[in-house]
């Protein structure tokens, strides 16, 4: 709550500060860069992150700041190739899935151990999955992944079978996430709250937890003897970095300034206004769009004017996505080309259907009898063409993006009223279905997220009735891990969502990091979260 005015104000402040810095005749100190050379082991990476994680246990958390720490501490059964979305071996060398995707049998690699010395065996994997299931919604992401999880069975010390009560094709991708990363059996002798603070946070990952000072920093150090990394990574053996200090720096301007002045080696969440600072001066700016549901105006089709598909289609045509990314964001952000982000496996490019078409929008509204009123907003039978959108400031530019969309829609005679709420209230309204439009995005590198948010048997954010054209395809994709069968279903679902304008996609959330001249190979994993195993610092 306090954060928002601070952020808004500081953006203004930053402009003034930058002006002042320019007046002083100083520029960010950029040295060298040059040839990266072969990776070098050793050193401490000082990484500026934007928010204080309340919890560090990757099985419990849902924010990027926390997931980026947790990812380094745990290994997962599988890994996901960020290039093509394919699921690849990691702790599991191979796996088998039954015909209806209700039973998954994993064969574990030998030799992996947790940092307390105990082996990563079938019993430990079972304990870990049972442990996640036991804490229910406290496992903010895992709870959804394991919604249909029934039980795990130790077949032999290196084989474990996980059974589900409903088809759960998405589980294969979920098994690659840090949210289902494996913790040692000893972790479950501690309470979830203790694990949050790092107590008992014992994994088998390339780094081990060292310390956590709230609002200050989190320190992790290299796991000695680590030798069971994912084959997708660039090198084998131990991580290069001795230590990583995640420094919590909430002010965007201070984050960028600290990186520019060499007080930090890398930062996350570079704000659009700061992006040009790190272009072509020895600094690098890794960028990756988040997979999953893009930022969108999700329509509740039972509410007011939005119950008319033609009105929803007009809104879809009336949004100029390119203008949003060009003016409010930067070229690093992509206009939405489907309800799924382009980094999501099985994403279907529907940019043509999502092209800006104000004339088409006006035509649709004219046909439906909506005539421009005295203030430019269309009316019909005394009713104004208007809908509310509820949002919270989970992404700094949300307000500006929505204000621009509001202006764009005004041009077709649609009155979008913007209402900012707290995260808690937005969640409450979402659960109650009490909204016209709701504004959000969700990160997930599996198309099943469509089922989670659109199916009448799951989130059903559009409040669709049974027998809608979407449910069948969503069920079909959930029942098989075979892409040949899944692909047509997922593509059909995306097409229906856009055709029916159940949701109006706008832009893809994008991670923008800044790396200092000495920092190399800080990598994105498939869900656009951070992988520090290959990262190294030049001498």
């Amino acid at each position, binding site marked *: *709550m*306090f*954060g928002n005015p*601070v952020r808004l104000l*500081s953006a*203004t*402040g*930053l402009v*003034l*500060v930058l002006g002042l*810095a320019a007046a002083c005749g*100083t520029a960010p100190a950029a040295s060298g860069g040059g040839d990266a050379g072969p990776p070098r082991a050793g050193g401490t990476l000082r990484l500026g992150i934007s928010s*204080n994680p*309340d*919890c560090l246990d990757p099985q419990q*958390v849902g*924010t*990027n700041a*926390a*997931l980026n720490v947790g990812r380094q501490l745990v290994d997962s059964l599988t890994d996901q190739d960020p290039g093509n979305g394919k699921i690849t071996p990691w702790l599991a060398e191979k796996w088998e899935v039954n015909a209806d995707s209700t039973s998954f049998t994993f064969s574990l690699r030998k030799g992996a151990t947790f940092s307390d010395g105990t082996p990563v065996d079938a019993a430990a994997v079972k304990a870990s999955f049972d442990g996640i299931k036991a804490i*229910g*919604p*406290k496992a*903010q*992401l895992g*709870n959804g992944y394991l919604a249909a999880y029934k039980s795990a069975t130790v077949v032999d010390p290196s084989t474990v079978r996980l059974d589900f009560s409903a088809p759960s094709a998405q589980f294969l991708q979920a098994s690659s996430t840090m949210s289902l990363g494996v913790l040692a059996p000893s972790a479950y002798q501690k*309470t979830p*709250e203790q694990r*949050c*603070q790092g107590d008992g946070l014992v994994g088998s990952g390339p780094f081990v937890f060292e310390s956590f000072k*709230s*609002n*200050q920093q989190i320190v992790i150090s290299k796991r000695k003897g680590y030798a069971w990394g994912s084959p997708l990574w660039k090198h084998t053996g131990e991580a290069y970095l001795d230590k990583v200090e995640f*420094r919590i*720096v909430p*002010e965007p301007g*201070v984050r960028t*300034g*600290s990186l*520019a*002045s060499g*007080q*930090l080696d890398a930062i996350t969440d570079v704000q659009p206004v700061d992006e040009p600072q790190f272009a072509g001066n020895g600094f690098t700016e890794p960028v990756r769009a988040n997979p999953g549901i893009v930022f969108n105006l999700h329509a509740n089709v039972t509410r007011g004017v939005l119950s008319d598909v033609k009105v929803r289609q007009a809104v879809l045509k009336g949004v100029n996505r390119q203008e949003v990314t060009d003016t409010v964001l930067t070229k690093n952000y992509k206009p939405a080309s489907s309800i799924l982000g382009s980094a999501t496996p099985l994403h279907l490019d529907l940019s043509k259907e999502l092209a800006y078409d104000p004339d088409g929008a006006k035509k649709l509204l004219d046909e439906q009898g909506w005539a421009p009123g005295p203030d430019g907003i269309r009316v019909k039978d005394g009713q104004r063409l208007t809908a509310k959108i509820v949002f919270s400031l989970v992404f700094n530019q949300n307000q500006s993006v929505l204000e621009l969309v509001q202006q764009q829609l005004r041009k077709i005679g649609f009155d979008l009223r913007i209402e900012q*709420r*707290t*995260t*808690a*209230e*937005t*969640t*409450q309204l*979402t*659960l109650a279905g009490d909204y016209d439009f709701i504004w*959000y995005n*969700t990160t*997930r590198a599996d198309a099943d*997220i469509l089922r*989670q*948010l659109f199916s009448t048997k799951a*989130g059903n954010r559009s409040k669709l009735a049974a027998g809608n054209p979407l449910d069948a395809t969503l069920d079909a994709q959930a029942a098989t891990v075979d892409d040949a069968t899944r692909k047509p279903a997922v593509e059909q679902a995306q097409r229906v969502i856009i055709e029916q304008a159940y949701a109006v996609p706008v832009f893809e959330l994008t991670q923008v990091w800044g790396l200092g001249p000495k920092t190399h190979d800080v990598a994105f994993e498939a869900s656009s979260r951070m992988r520090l195993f290959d990262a190294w610092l030049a001498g």
Partner: protein
Amino acid sequence: MTNGIPRRLAQAVVVLWAAFTLSFVILYLLPGDAVLAKLGGGDGGSTLTAADVAREHAALGLDDPVVVQYGKRLLAAVQGDFGRSIASGEDATTLVLNALPSTLSITGLGLLFAVVFGGAIAILGTYTRSRWLSQFLASLPPLGNSLPTFWVGLVLIQIFSFNLGWVPALGSDGFSALVLPAVTLALPTGAIIGQVLAKSLRTQLDEPYVEVVLAKGASRARVHFGHVLRNAALPALTLVGVLAGNLLAGSVITESVFSRDGIGRVTASAVSAQDIPVVQAVIVLAALFFVVLNLAVDLLYPVLDPRLAGRVTAKAQSRGKAVSGV
């Protein structure tokens, strides 16, 4: 003096109770709650169901009637137990007490800077015979008070950390990391102190007793520092009690800008997470701080002004007698 203390303690208890109750009521009335803020944050909200929320409410006793929740919380709070943070699961009292030293160090130093610089500006501004200097010094407080804290903080970081590299921009390690946050906090506070002190110094300088003392042969310096300053200090001192509260409020922004841990950061995140146990622990602590500080200021009055000592110890004594002291 002695018979005033029980009354003051009773007042303090009422203030603490009111702070506790008001914070509970406000946070309770806000739409949404800590469980929704926590489970719906990040990407967690996408698969959350109403049943999940109900389960967490039950586990935390949040499904009890509000009167029962309040009663339980009050009973525990009286024993020093504010409960556990809903966001992180840590003990709320520990969380707040751990953050306290960091805040006290910047607010303490900030107050010192404020008093020293505010005082110096006021005294020099009224003492100097240079019209130009006097006017320049008189113009500083309004300027200092009108600069937004976050902006001052960013400018100071930009100059002294990013450009000159004299102090670190981040963290709480060592004295060097204290200076900029303390200066940032001291600026608006010192400005107010300077303004009030200068005003009362000017008022006192016009009093007849000044001419009497000068006529008796005292030097200007002696009049200024020995007589006038002492009389003029009272309003400024009263202000210090109030401004300490401002410093605490200023720490919310200052600690964010300087990436420090502290009460301000804890408060900001607890309020946005609607984390009632932590907010209440902070508010009661702040109220306690306020009560103690103002008590201390009250007790300091008689030291500076013996007339007030007379008033407190022997209220029955006539006022006229006490005032004839000069």
